[in-house]
């Protein structure tokens, strides 16, 4: 039991597994190989036919499906029931899934039901001397730890971008009937922002907009409308994802001029997200280490602001351009069109 590794994937509305699910499958393979154990898989969702064509590269010893209208949308009670029954049926010692919103909603509850332990947002896994060790961040990406547990089952969620996606291939599956009902009815998905979608997890570049965009400029005036156009133009031209500092999204509650399309969903940093993108461009951002954790997982980083000594950039960005972001971004946008 201790060396049996169960991977659980949730399908999306079209019956497919998204990239983070396939990355978590690679993590599960790595763990099973390292432990000399067996990998088993389960697919949960409205349907699983397409997904079964995506996971063959992992060569799971068995595949279980829990499908139907009940699992077509995320919901704690029904998702937890499905995963609990699969985990108990397979008698897995390690349970692995992607740290998306769907599994994150149930991971700890599942561990509690199984009498096990849980660690979320795992960024690395290795087996040394027959012992599984995983890495995860603590104190909002301020420090990283390597941990091991003797408790089993051990439920792990894998942070997106931490492993390469598993190779595709087809597998056969055995359906599992799960009886459950819930007092909750999923009603659908709502866009978090009005207008164009500006949070793009798969984008190559993250644009971080800081509070400086809403401050008085060289002419002594505030130019929020111009700032909004420049930022949205860039997000569209570069197909960038948009993030903002906490101070930027807090301005609204302080009665100051704001960029209306930025919400707490865009917030990165200590009390926001730490997204993963290959490149990041920070504009008009200021602050020290606690705020800069928002781009902990950005590989190449550049910044534009007017302070050469800014703690946001010094030692944390590869390049800092000391310049007027309004002028520079206008010219960057011209070049990207």
């Amino acid at each position, binding site marked *: 039991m201790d060396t049996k590794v169960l991977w659980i994937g949730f399908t999306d509305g079209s019956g497919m597994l998204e990239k983070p699910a396939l990355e978590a499958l690679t993590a599960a393979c790595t763990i099973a190989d390292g432990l000399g154990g067996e990998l088993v898989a389960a697919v949960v969702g409205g349907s699983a036919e397409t997904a079964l064509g995506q996971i063959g590269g992992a060569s799971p010893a068995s595949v279980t499906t829990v499908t139907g209208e009940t699992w077509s*949308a*995320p919901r*704690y009670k029904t998702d937890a029931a499905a995963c609990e029954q699969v985990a108990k049926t397979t008698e897995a010692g390690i349970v692995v899934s992607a740290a*998306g919103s*769907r599994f994150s*909603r149930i*991971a*700890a*509850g599942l561990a*509690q*039901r199984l009498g096990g*332990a*849980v660690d*979320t947002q795992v960024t690395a896994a290795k087996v040394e001397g027959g012992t599984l*060790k995983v890495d995860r961040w*603590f*104190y*909002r990406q*301020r*420090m990283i*730890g*390597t*941990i*091991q*547990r003797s*408790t089993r089952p051990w439920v792990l969620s894998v942070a997106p971008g931490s492993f390469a996606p598993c190779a595709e291939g087809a597998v056969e599956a055995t359906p599992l009937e799960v009886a459950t009902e*819930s*007092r*909750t*009815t999923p*009603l*659908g*998905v*709502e*866009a*978090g922002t009005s207008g164009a*979608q*500006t*949070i793009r*997890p798969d984008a190559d570049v993250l644009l971080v907009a800081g509070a400086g965009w809403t401050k008085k400029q060289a002419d002594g005036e505030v130019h929020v409308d111009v700032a909004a156009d420049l930022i949205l133009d860039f997000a569209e031209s*570069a197909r960038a994802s948009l993030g903002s500092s906490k101070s930027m999204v807090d301005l609204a*509650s302080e009665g100051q001029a704001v960029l209306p399309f930025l919400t*707490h969903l865009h*917030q990165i940093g*200590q009390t926001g997200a730490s997204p993963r993108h290959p490149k990041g461009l920070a504009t008009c951002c200021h602050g*020290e280490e606690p705020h800069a954790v928002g781009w902990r997982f950005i590989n190449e980083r550049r910044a534009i602001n007017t302070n*050469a000594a800014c703690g946001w950039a*010094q*030692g*944390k960005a*590869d*390049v*800092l*351009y*000391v*310049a007027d972001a309004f*002028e*520079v971004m206008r*010219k960057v946008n011209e070049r*990207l069109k």
Partner: protein
Amino acid sequence: MPTTYQIVVCGGIVPDPLQSLEPVMGPTGPALKNEMMLPSVLDPWAWHALFEAADLAKRHPGSKVWLVSMSPKAKLQQVMMGLAQKVPFELVVVDGPASGFADAVETAAALAGAIEGIPDLDRSKLLLFGGWQSASRGTGAVLQMIGEILGIDEQFQGVDKLTVDDSGGLEILERIEAGAWQKSRCAGAPAVLGWATGELPEPPNNPQIGMQNMRGIMPALQQAKPAALSGEGLSYDSVESPKQRRETRVETEMDADAIADEIAAWLKG
């Protein structure tokens, strides 16, 4: 008859986010350097949860809010001095570690025990609130586990909005990927809601609420039961701050055209 709620908010304390944090390995595992000296605040997302709870209770007269916290009681007392002036609540204290390195399983068991010990708590009206993650451990695990221990299997995480309709039904927005919300309707309490930012601004200080709260806070701190977490089954090989410091090229003389050329080439490359 209007719906009333018994709202239990779980929230620990964490170091002030503006503090520099450095991990140290001790005989019992990792800790923060000078941890007891660091100024603390209520965990940011639990802070939002508390304000949402107070607002909900205000809109549903007859409802009540408890704040259940496992923290070192001396440090919790300091945090309460400011927090008590914000919204009305009754404090329940478990005197235990607020460390991000403590195990979620043991923390959840201690907090669930404290909630089960609240006199006359009507479980049929219970809404269990808290932050969807902490700013310390950050697993998003404890609230789910408490819910399971208390037998509440309608749970929501990353909540930004809760609307109660005339029949007592709960309409909930949970954060999901790509800046969107999952919208769900739950038939009513009991339920677990792990809050993200919510929608409410920080309430202003109200000295009257502060005095009212403090009458209960000091006895609660004095009566706090200790929780000794064993850490059994969990061990740390290492905990360290990332030391990587980038060699930042600072460009002070480039004109806007040259910078734009360079950034555009970098983005396309």
